[in-house]
């Protein structure tokens, strides 16, 4: 199957590239990868090669970004990705239990490393490092939505809202 970027998305990407001097297109790499991941849900080998071609780079220049930056995914995730903050203030505020709560509810292993996806492919859960809202611990994100002071009841509510 060939990899196609819809015209509307490509137009957005072309606009993003103009934010950088014409001979510094490489700088747009992260912004392009965000745009592609938002659209496709993950970054396939084809997406990486497409980005490289678009910016006049070698695929390795793009691949090494995808493997380094924690937000980029090389495999599909659930429709809803839940990121629970693991770092100190949230840990003091009960984020360990919150993460466990999600895992138990969704039939995942709370002690496994990295991103895990529920059997039905609807939810992924992962621990992430500091989300910079330490005063309202514990905090989390569900896709791009940010939630603070998340009790277990609020966690259930968030899951319930995911259609």
């Amino acid at each position, binding site marked *: 199957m060939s990899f196609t970027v819809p015209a509307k998305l490509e137009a957005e990407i072309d606009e993003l590239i103009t934010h950088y001097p014409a001979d510094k297109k490489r700088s747009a790499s*992260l912004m392009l990868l965000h745009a592609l991941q938002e659209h496709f849900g993950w970054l396939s080998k084809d997406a990486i090669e497409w980005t490289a071609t678009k910016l006049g780079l070698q695929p390795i220049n793009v691949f090494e970004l995808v493997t380094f930056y924690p937000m980029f995914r090389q495999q599909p995730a659930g429709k809803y990705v839940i990121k629970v903050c693991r770092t100190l203030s949230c840990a003091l505020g009960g984020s360990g239990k919150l993460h466990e709560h999600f895992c138990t509810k969704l039939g995942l292993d709370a002690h496994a490393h990295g991103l895990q996806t529920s059997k039905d492919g609807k939810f992924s859960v992962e621990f992430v490092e500091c989300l910079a809202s330490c005063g309202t611990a514990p905090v989390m994100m569900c896709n791009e939505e940010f939630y603070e002071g998340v009790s277990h009841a609020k966690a259930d509510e968030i899951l319930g809202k995911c259609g």
Partner: protein
Amino acid sequence: MPQQFRLILKNVDAAGFTNDIDCYMRNGGYETLKKALAIAPKDLPDGKKMSPQEQLRDDVKLSGLRGRGGAGFSCGLKWSFVDRRSGKPIYLICNADESEPGTFKDRQIIHKDPHQLIEGMIISCFANDVKLAYIYIRGEFPEGARILNRALNEARAKNFLGKNILGSGQDIEIHVHRGAGAYICGEETGLIESLEGKRPYPRIKPPYFPAILGLWMCPTIVNNVETLCHVKHIVQMGAAEYAKLGTPNNTGTRIVSLSGHVKKPGYYEIEVGKVTLGELINHPDFGGGLLDGRKLKAIIPGGSSSKVLKAGEKFKLKKKGPDGKDIEQETDVLDLPYDFDSLMAAGTMSGSSAVIVIDDSADVVEVLANISEFYAHESCGQCTPCREGSLWMSKTLHRLTHGGGRKGDADYLVKIADNIPGGRTICAFGEACSWPVQSFVGKFKEDFVARGAADEAKRGGIDASHSKAVAPVSAT
């Protein structure tokens, strides 16, 4: 009477204040930019002229403004290092990568008063002859990026940005650039590499001082969100007035992010040095004290990299006596004025002004294990001492918190931590990952030794687990 002083946060959370440009302008927004653009060249006694840009840079220097991102370096001095003779373009980058654990102040500005930042940036661009600037915002702030993009569009529509802004002949453009979840991008040279579309491996200095060889090998200024907001207020108030805020050498205000075991965690803006650490934690206008029945154990005073302070610790601080001579005064940890210099004198730092309070319900071994796991995850991997050291410290703390500890782990941790920083790594991450380990183990050694000893006793000796594992082999 300790109190908040809302300069940067004046509009944040104010009733009826919204983050759009109309509301900002109704509250005096962009008037300071107009004021800056209208500054006339000044005649100097020697017959030379001082350009408006030079006057603005001079103001920032005179204000005493120190960077609010972590290092507390003089902003005016940083600007003065910029290579203005190379003929290359000069770039400005706003560091909005806010990711030091404990810190959540820039989030408030970006989400609730984005135009204040943009106005501060445009003034800073003008003052430094910058035509193109970026806001490097952490990837986990998608909403913040959207808000900033909308705000930038609003500013463009009013010609505060773009070509010939407000008829001044100046072209200034600002774009938002998103990171993707790496803490090291908060380090300015790592940030620059990331903005160039590479892995954010920090650059070695010399020669790669951003002021000379920064973004695309051009002179570059990297300032924190809060710092750039202060620039706007310095121009608005005048440097001398601004410098009256705070305390000498620690001028202005700072937003303190208070989290952990206090009744009222949150962001509190104070005049630098006018409020003590104890007041931040206990005063009803700030943290409101510890949770009922708990006792203070430790304070992380400036983000998780800063060295921990132990409850009851005493420090000898130099103070000016009535006769003007320096006298040494014994100061309890809770009486430390919250500023750059006092915390440095206490052997730690105010860093990104993130105070994390730890009470006696927490186990310091678990706390350090959590911090070290963060640094092990975030080390970029470029320098061996940091890449390996941060991981070994985290692994050692993992075994200490999972029943596999040893009595000697405390000394072992310090030995590793002592061998990472001090010029063995390219950037300050080496220090950042070592300081918590050195200070936690140094100040709470008995907790770490006891934990290891208890594990050893359970296993019946240091090598019990090991010998059990090899027993079947030796039996055959």
